[in-house]
């Protein structure tokens, strides 16, 4: 997967996270915190994660590879990691 594709995926993460913010649609920065800055609560995080999985066709990741997310940047890294693993496995 090329750097361009990965950058596109990261941009897509930012777009979806911003679009689904409980505070209303916005353009988040990578350093924005998902809960504190973008207003996500537990159910909104589940909704956002499920939408991301559908839109980006994400697979389940191994437990040892799972990272938690506080900021939008963490979420971008997680998604890119999943896409890289899928690329390596194919």
């Amino acid at each position, binding site marked *: 997967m090329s750097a361009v594709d990965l950058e596109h995926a990261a941009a897509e993460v930012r777009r979806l996270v911003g679009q689904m913010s409980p505070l209303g649609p916005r353009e988040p920065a990578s350093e924005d915190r998902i809960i504190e800055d973008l207003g996500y609560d537990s159910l909104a995080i589940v909704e956002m994660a*499920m939408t991301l999985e559908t839109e980006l066709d994400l697979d389940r990741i191994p437990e040892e590879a799972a990272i938690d997310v506080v900021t939008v940047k963490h*979420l971008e890294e997680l998604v890119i990691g999943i896409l890289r693993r899928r690329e390596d496995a194919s």
Partner: protein
Amino acid sequence: MSATADDLPAVRSAEALYTAWEEQHWSVGALPFAEDAAGWNELSSFWRDELLGAIRELHAGEVAVTETLTPLIDFAHTPADRNYLCTQIADEARHVAFFDAYLEAVGAIADVRAAADLATYQDVFEPALRRATGAVREEPADPGRWYAASVHYHLVTEAVLGVTVLRSTRQFARRVRVELPALEQGLTNLARDESRHISFGLASARRGVADGHGEPILEAYTAAIKLAARVLVGPDRRSAAPVVPAALRARAAQIEGQWGVARDRVARNLGLIGLEDAVDGVVTAWDEAREAALDDYEATFGAPHPVRQAQALGAGAAR
């Protein structure tokens, strides 16, 4: 030692419940379904699916209890019990009418009829409820059968499963970011009705225990709560497990919160009917049934249930 009836908190009599029913009427036709139809179209697919899944569970439960109450009415132990139970079957019919009208209004009735994701309830729990109430007709002179059926119906189907799903559905509906006034009002009305039904179940089971029928009551209760635990886990229904760890934990916490409400009810019911000595054993049976259902889920889908996936991730704080 179990408490005597005099030591237990007061519960309303059948006569008082009849009077409360007369004072708490509501009409399906008066609810603003058109407003919900407009709001429903604004829901994201995530919220719509979640809400529809919960409503589907409540709808299936209401249909089943409407179809299985009559043996308890026919062989009620007192005229007051029979009068009260006749009000209850009217309630159950109204609840079915409410969900039918709601699902029709929001355009989801076909989805509900086509759905096959309530297998555990329809294939395991509901047949057991039918057997329990049907057994009353086979041996009407045996009061133990009537009490066993009432326990299955009122204390497990309604006071454990019904209360748990109704509560989580109401909470969920309140977090949806669009107005659904008919659903809010309808579920509030249902909750009020269910409160009377459960009061009756507690009062009659307490009387059964006091009259020496504690053994069949406890046996029926234990068997039914094991099935209820299985229904709540849903080993035949795939449960979404988000890839994002924070979302997976949130999802698991939401599910475990629902199971916790049910487990608390399982224990509390026993205390209220004078069988508090049995709480530990019954709660253990509940936990074992839940774990067995989780094992079956994993065997069916080849992956752990989201609750177990979240447990495997550990309870570490977000970085």
